[in-house]
């Protein structure tokens, strides 16, 4: 069964350093999402791509976060500089269509980020 791949699974970094996460969605899925999940809370959408275009990045802290999906396939989320409050699980998900169409989202295993 096809899965969403994410790497690394775990990342420890010092504050003020740069960190990057990679996601490879299920083949054929046009929509890709990046979420942040703080322990005890639900996933919070950071950015949504439709193919290579950003559909929604209203919750992305653009002063330090950036995301790209250059060829409309895999995607990278970057944080520079990292802050202590960025410690969380970063989840990538993909779906056949956009959230407006009600397609289920397939999530990857996530990247657990710890900022020290």
């Amino acid at each position, binding site marked *: 069964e096809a899965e969403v791949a994410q790497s690394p699974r775990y990342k420890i970094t010092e504050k003020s350093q740069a960190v990057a996460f990679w996601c490879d969605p299920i083949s054929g899925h046009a929509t890709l*999402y990046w979420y942040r999940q703080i322990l005890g809370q*639900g*996933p919070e959408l950071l950015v949504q791509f439709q193919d290579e275009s950003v559909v929604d990045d209203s919750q992305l802290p653009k002063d330090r976060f950036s995301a790209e999906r250059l060829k409309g396939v895999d995607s990278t989320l970057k944080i520079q500089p990292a802050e202590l409050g960025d410690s969380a699980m970063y989840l990538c*998900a993909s779906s056949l269509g956009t*959230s*407006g169409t*009600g397609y289920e*989202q397939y999530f*990857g*295993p996530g990247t657990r980020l710890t900022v020290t």
Partner: protein
Amino acid sequence: SQKIEQNSEALNIQEGKTATLTCNYTNYSPAYLQWYRQDPGRGPVFLLLIRENEKEKRKERLKVTFDTTLKQSLFHITASQPADSATYLCALRGNNDMRFGAGTRLTVKP
């Protein structure tokens, strides 16, 4: 402001009983609502979707209801098993995106 509230952080039930989880929302008019299961340290897994014009959806031991008047969805697991122990998240479409509740952690005791 828009809110999604799931009942109590934790729910403990005995094996074989029916678990009922609640998802209430305010200031949304969602076209649909989804339920996901999340195990510790893993990404959520999709379970069921119910649209605004549907009252009830079933899948094996799972049942979801959607009351747009009460602005509430109920998620039932019948004949619960210890393997059903996990956090269950409801998600609904906001203005432009999917928003998740904080989840309810279900523990099914043998």
